């Protein structure tokens, strides 16, 4: 100690407090932030409340009561990375003749009339450092419900799973989830018998 004391400058109590308190607070804040980030990243907590949409679209009526398959509207899901939201034109394929007097459909028709896009609020969003490819999962016979929940019962679309890395890895490590047959809903060949655990598959 004697040696250390010789090396360190002598400080008054006031000076020690001035240096020590911010250092302690800073350390605690960093430790807290790291803990929060680990918690958010690993064990959920990013499920956001269902947002208000410009048109009160009801999945329960479309996918539930009328049993319209998901892929009918989300057409990109079996061919590309993104599932895609339907174009205004696509909604009007049916609503030119179905439910024209409903308030939501009237709003939709007004947008079509004006040739304007509908500005939806995103429900599911993955961070920018993740590349998720829908078609790969569809080809592996993973049902939409696995990630999105029982959408056919949702009057208002909401997020039910945290969609964090822990959930991804849970499935990717669980070989019992893998499809038994090589047929896939999109008709594409299934190339892999088990999901990859390679970081670069999603983080690229």
């Amino acid at each position: 100690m004697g040696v250390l004391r010789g090396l360190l400058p002598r400080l008054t109590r006031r000076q020690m407090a001035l240096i020590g308190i911010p250092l302690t607070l800073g350390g605690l804040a960093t430790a807290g932030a790291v803990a929060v980030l680990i918690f958010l990243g690993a064990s959920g907590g990013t499920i956001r409340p269902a947002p208000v949409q410009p048109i009160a679209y009801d999945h329960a009526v479309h996918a539930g009561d009328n049993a319209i398959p998901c892929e009918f509207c989300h057409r990109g899901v079996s061919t590309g990375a993104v599932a895609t939201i339907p174009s205004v034109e696509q909604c009007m394929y049916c609503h030119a003749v179905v439910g024209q007097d409903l308030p939501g459909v009237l709003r939709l028709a007004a947008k079509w009339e004006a040739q304007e896009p509908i500005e939806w609020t995103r429900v599911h969003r993955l961070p920018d450092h993740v590349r998720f490819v829908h078609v790969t999962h569809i080809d592996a016979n993973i049902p939409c419900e696995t990630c999105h929940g029982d959408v056919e019962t949702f009057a208002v679309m909401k997020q039910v799973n945290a969609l964090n890395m822990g959930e991804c890895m849970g499935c990717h490590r669980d070989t019992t989830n893998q499809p038994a047959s090589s047929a896939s809903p999109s008709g594409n060949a299934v190339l892999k018998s088990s999901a990859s655990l390679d970081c670069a598959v999603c983080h690229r």
Partner: protein
Amino acid sequence: MHLGRRKFLAGVAGTAGGVVIVGCAAPERESRVQSFVLAPEHSLPGDSVWFATADAHSNVGNSVVVRTVDGRAKKVEGNPAFPINQGKTDVRAQAAVQSLYHPDRIKTPMIPAGKRGDGRYEEIIWERALDMLGAAIGPAGSFHLVTSRLTGTEARVAGAFADLVGGDHLVYEPIENGTFQAAVKKILGVDNTPHFDIANAGTVLSFGADFVGTWGSSVMYSQAYSRMRGGNRGRLTQLETRMSMTGASADNWIYVKPGQEGALALSIAQVIVAEALVHFDVWRDVVEAIGGVDVLNQYAPDVVAERTGVTVTTVQEIAREFVDRQPGVAFAGGPALAQTNGLDNGAAVLFLNLVVGNLDKAGGVLANPMAPAHIPAPLPETPFAGWRSYTDDLAAGTVPDVLFVYDADPAYGIPGNPGFADAIAEVPFVVGMSSFMNETVGLADLILPATHPFEAWGDFTADPGPGTQVVGFQQPVTTPWNDARSFGDVLLTLAPEIKGEGALPWASMHEAVRAGAEKLFGMEETGAAFDASWVELLRRGGAWEQAADVSEFAALPDWDATALAGPEFAGDAGSFNFHLIPFATIAIGAGNESESPWLQSVGDPLTTVTWTSWAELNPETAAELGVGTGDVVAIDARHGTIEVPVFVSPVTPPDVVAVPIGRGRNFGGRWRRDRGENIFSVLDPMTDTGTGSLAWASTRARVRSVDRKIAMPTLERVEEPRNDVEEPVLEVEGE
């Protein structure tokens, strides 16, 4: 308010917490997602869609494929199916996306806010611009249209518009092709560029033509050169004044004194004839046609060795190798033709092909078909002599009512006094159309934003073709990024307004290009029935299977070599003791693409210099002048002085100072302005006596130090050249 310690700490903690929470949340705009109104077919958000289109920056006819994502161009690659560039591109094609999204593109039509040319502009809308244009051209007594070497349908539309309003169409290009074409006409008797079959040649003699860098169809030639090396291991001999990239790649690099390339070529021919290396049946008639064996004997190696700077032994070796390793091909370009005797140099070099009889042979010179009439090859430029007298006339007051300049910059590239910029001062109405400001457009009364080639329709016939007819199409791969319109569309909008409906047969460039494609195949089906073929043509990027008769080479040359004049130089050799040799670089060429920072930072292959002009000097000359790499020197010619840093290069001949073309501009965006010097500003307006083209390599200069130094922007550290005589790489001792 009393701020206690506790309140202060609470406030700090709260603020920090707020910052962390707000900072971690995704921005609000990222939570919004717009649906398409009409979903595009065959396209998903985030997925790539590739379109084939023209590489319009090259004037020889390359085709590219452009990767687009969500309607925006992202990346350029060569069109793998296209016979000219075969999936490859040059560096300028790669940078095309950068000029597309360049922040300094002309965004809307503009008029000067003050005096013409003082650099302040006011933005206007297209309707007003077109009204101004119509009101000016309609009643104009005289209308002059100045363009670059337009090609295909765009060239036809420009010509048709000029004819419609009774105007003249002048074509401007700083580095002219006219001398080469005239030499081809004299020796081979054809009006288009032949195909030099480098890929199958045993020997290539290239006199000053930097064919793997900047000369001709360089992407095609580079691949042919690689095949020549890989297949039958042909040999390349490059004979030139300043070592080019091709010279650096050659097996054999021979220094020729400026303007003596023709004498050297005839000297090689003399050896072939005198040593009977080729059977006399092959060369008898063609040698007779240019004046006979006696004329050739005037160029015997020992007679002209001093003139050409090439020793007798070297000439004999070149001649013997050229004959031993047939088929072979000889051609000339670059500074060899930019002399007062350029046409004779070009003719003499092409004549070598006749002496060894390698026309219409694989590995020799093959004829190309002419371009179809409705998709012409790039227009021939108006020779420099014509431009010089035109500029003098303008300065003397003979001015048109309206001068419309598109994609050309004569104010930058016409040497001599008065300059083009001063000469157009009296023109009542100058219109400038371009994607970027340049020295000419900056002086206009009305400035119009032109589309990028990726935003417009067009077509072209490859010149030269690979011995067959190759037509390419240019389709827009993205919607215009700015409020730009295509030149052809502007003319086609104006025509009916000035001369009434139906004045020109097309309403838009799209219609005109499509009509040309229909005619190309003499299609039975037209209109809707042609739709499927049209989509297929665009998908492939062009058409190259259609049969077309090739031009027929003349049996005998139409060139007389009996009394050839030697080169003349501007400036006497006593006070101007250097040959000033300008050269184009692979990145910015003649300066048209210098707006791109990518291209500005591409190192010249031999020196690795970026971003600025430089003067290449021989080490001994530099030592005599007391300068080294980075020291600034003044280069004085009769017509002016420029100051550039020196690059000491062991391959530069002692009496040569070489300076790149294309920099030293006052307009055209933040990365183009005020970098380097404009070499055209000091060139003498000498012309080739045969064609009137600018003899840009015939100026003499003197070089002096100005006691200033800059840090040379090179990509590599420059080593002092090794002295192989005093410091041999390997010494064998004893046996």
